[in-house]
């Protein structure tokens, strides 16, 4: 058997020491009637050579972004991943360790996550970042639960405008048995209709959730939205795009209380949707209501600076049913990827990536509208992603695919977006452009669709 050490002689010696004649005796604590008296029905074992053949055979029937030109968006983007990330996170000392329960034997992990928290705070201008949650959608769900704890209001949460439909679905699942109403206020001209939002806020609203850039790409006036939320005594939760913060005003400067994100664009591969990285930040006054792990700086017995798991009394292993979250395992290795990504790019690098995405997306939008006849769905300002209207979106996608391009997703694959007409939802197509796309690729896509 692969990966096992024990030889037949050693097994005998070990059984002798235990004082039993066979492993079967050790298994007697499992009643005979409950034991499985047949082999599991699993595929036959494969050697490493055969396993590699099997995986290659499967992988060959899934074409990756490397084989195609990817203009897909909707919350997952093909950004360039510097080589250092795979090399460094591929070190066994990182990826074969676990949660740093023994601080002395985990200073590498602890310091790396402290740096993660520091860099995410610098990126967002928020006070506190935790050491990650599962993904962007579950981060919003955790933010909603935290808003309820902070405000003491448990009966209403309001999604403003176009938040990712999968995030809304996730929040609905999380609160559906808590008697909490989930309200979605409509878009108007591609961004939040502020009058309708104001009208939806009550003195029982725990939070307003705004995504900016929103699901259709539009940049929201987050400062104005958070003022509206605060006027109603609610918290403002922003879901942001981390790369966009190379250019855009940051959540901390817009007055939001909790800022969360899907962190995939920070050096994490697409891998069909996961593992990704939930970023979770808040203002310092709410830190004891924060879900998830936190790393803190302290000193050791001899006064030397070191790092520990901190404020653990919030967590499930201590507070059990009153914990701020049930999360235990988080996205550690993905947080390490994001830290190395941000450290590698630095302030100039992230600004350059953001500018490239923005310029190329605007070029693509212009060409698609003027040459291919696919107009923007709204005039709202956008960052790297936008929605175009096409009379036969399925045909557009197929045409692009046949030429080796992936665009989308189609808005029709999602639950109805509040404020979008049935026609717009049926005809809308998202297009995302990152720094990886060249002018030539954009021109060819436009040509194919023209």
């Amino acid at each position, binding site marked *: 058997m692969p990966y096992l050490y024990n030889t037949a002689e050693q097994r005998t010696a070990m059984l002798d020491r235990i004082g039993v004649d066979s492993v079967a005796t050790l298994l007697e604590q499992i009643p005979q009637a409950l034991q499985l008296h047949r082999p599991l029905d699993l595929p036959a074992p494969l050697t490493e050579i055969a396993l590699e053949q099997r995986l290659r055979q499967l992988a060959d029937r899934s074409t990756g972004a490397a084989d195609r030109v990817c203009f897909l968006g909707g919350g997952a983007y093909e950004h360039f991943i510097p080589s250092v990330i795979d090399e460094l996170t591929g070190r066994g000392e990182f990826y074969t360790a676990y949660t740093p329960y023994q601080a002395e034997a985990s200073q590498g992990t602890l310091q790396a996550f402290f740096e993660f928290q520091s860099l995410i705070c610098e990126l967002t201008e928020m006070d506190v970042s935790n050491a990650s949650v599962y993904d962007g959608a579950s981060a919003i769900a955790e933010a909603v*639960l935290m808003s309820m704890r902070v405000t003491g209001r448990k009966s209403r949460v309001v999604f403003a405008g176009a938040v990712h439909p999968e995030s809304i679905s*996730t929040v609905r699942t999380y609160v559906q048995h808590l008697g909490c109403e989930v309200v979605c206020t409509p878009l108007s001209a591609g961004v939040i209709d502020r009058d309708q939002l104001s009208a939806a806020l009550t003195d029982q609203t725990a939070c307003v959730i705004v995504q900016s850039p929103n699901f259709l790409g539009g940049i929201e006036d987050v400062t104005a939205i958070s003022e509206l939320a605060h006027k109603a005594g609610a918290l403002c939760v922003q879901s942001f795009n981390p790369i966009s913060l190379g250019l855009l005003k940051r959540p901390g400067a817009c007055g939001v209380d909790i800022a969360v994100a899907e962190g995939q664009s920070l050096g994490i591969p697409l891998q069909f949707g996961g593992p990704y990285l939930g970023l979770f930040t808040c203002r310092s006054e709410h830190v004891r209501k924060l879900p998830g792990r936190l790393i803190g700086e302290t000193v050791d017995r001899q006064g030397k600076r070191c790092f520990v798991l901190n404020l653990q009394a919030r967590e499930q292993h201590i507070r059990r049913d009153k914990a701020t979250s049930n999360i235990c395992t988080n996205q550690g290795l993905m947080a390490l990827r994001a830290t190395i990504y941000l450290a590698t790019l630095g302030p100039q690098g992230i600004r350059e990536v953001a500018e490239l995405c923005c310029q190329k997306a605007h070029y693509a939008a212009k060409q698609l509208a003027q040459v291919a006849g696919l107009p923007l769905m709204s005039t709202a300002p956008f960052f790297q992603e936008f929605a175009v209207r096409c009379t036969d979106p399925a045909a557009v996608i197929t045409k692009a695919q046949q030429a080796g391009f992936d665009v989308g997703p189609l808005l029709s694959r999602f639950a109805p977006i509040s404020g979008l007409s049935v026609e717009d939802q049926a005809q809308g197509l998202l297009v995302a452009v990152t720094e990886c796309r060249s002018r030539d690729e954009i021109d060819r896509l436009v040509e194919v669709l023209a």
Partner: protein
Amino acid sequence: MRNTIATRLLSDLSTPGRRGASYPASDVPVEPLASLIPSAFLADAAPQLPELCEPEIVRHYVNLSTLNMSVDTHFYPLGSCTMKYNPKRHERLSRLPGIVDVHPYQADGSNQGMLELLYEMQQMLGEIAGLPAVSLQPAAGAHGELTALFVAAAYFRDKGEQRTKVVFPASAHGTNPASAAIAGFDCVELAPAGNGLVDLESLKRAVDQQTAVFMVTNPNTLGLFERQIDEIARVLHDAGGLVYIDGANMNAIMGITRPGDFGGDMMHYNVHKTFTGPHGAGGPGSGPIAVRDFLGPYLPGPIVTQSTASDGTTTYAQTTPAKSIGRVRAHFGNIGILVRGYCYLRTLGAAGVRAAAEDAILNANYLKALLADVLPAPHGPHCLHEFVASASGALKDRGISAMDIAKRLLDYGFHAPTVYFPLVVPEALMMEPTETESKETLDAFAETIAKILTEDPAELKLAPQTLPVSRPNDVQAARNPILKWTPCVKD
């Protein structure tokens, strides 16, 4: 051989003007930014990230990595965490372009290999559980628990039943009550019984028509099989409730007994534990759930379904179950971890899976026997994949606590067991050696513990003495939390 420069904080290392990455100039016509985005939405300056060059980033993180104990470098018997070897082949295979570069919104037609893999994974996990309906969506074990409780809540609501309670034993992982509370249930904890198992009589008293779910880890956190589990299940089923099996300890029973066969209605896996994920310094995990047929329609979507055309071609598609609870996250699941779990199960096959469980049990019992005289486990005589020893004798006789032993083990080059959990054992040291350790390692570990117990108790309070730091001040950290780097003059 310490390198203290490279382990300073990134922000302390920052030197204005350094760069780790550069990007090509734009090849599209560049427009003034303010003409694209209103200036009110633009930041005044780039984020205040540190400025570093590539070589120093590499040196920094390589040096940091050497401050960790890990499965690759040390014996890591952290109970309940299944710190087994992480096969290197998984790393290479999970980075194949057809896996790592697949976009979640790519059409199913161009993603048939991935979907086939995930379908096969659903089938294998259903078979090992004895519970046929599987969702791969949850991102970790606790997420799987929560998802299953949402499924149970939806099921009862659909049946028109008002069930408000979730019951669990005192030895349960903290995630059980935390998940139950988030799912909107009231938590009922059973008092611990003397033999470390669920007390059937107190269970019967706790379970009634308001009980939705009984959550139980089997084998439990003491490494003992709940041998009355079929009776337990009968109590629940007679009252119309469901039995949830916390699969944290599946490494003990895979191929030997199945949750579905011993009365479980729902369970989660920890793919990063049982199927050697890896653990990633705290995650990512993957927490698929398997449930009985009648709960299948409530699973979160999408799941993968298979269909065969009349010409014999098989295709795979993503579908959402009829009465789905909705999503618990975006996208399909933690694919990177599921692919590694798939590689593991395809490498082992049925016989290998059972052999792994049997060796995990053999190793745990062997270590338990080696320690029987010096650090006895109060429950037994035998265990499954792990056991909980107690240092209360050592504390009483010599003033040596579980924490002292744990810290001193680090000096001798062993990661510590889980300490002070479960709470039902005083001075608990929870040890799970796993199957991928040798007799020689277990012998050395047991000898070391015996030696530590003869050492000067006052010296042990100073352990570890050979690691970079020793006994961090947790109180100071929690009283005045410093949670990020702040620019200030320091040594």
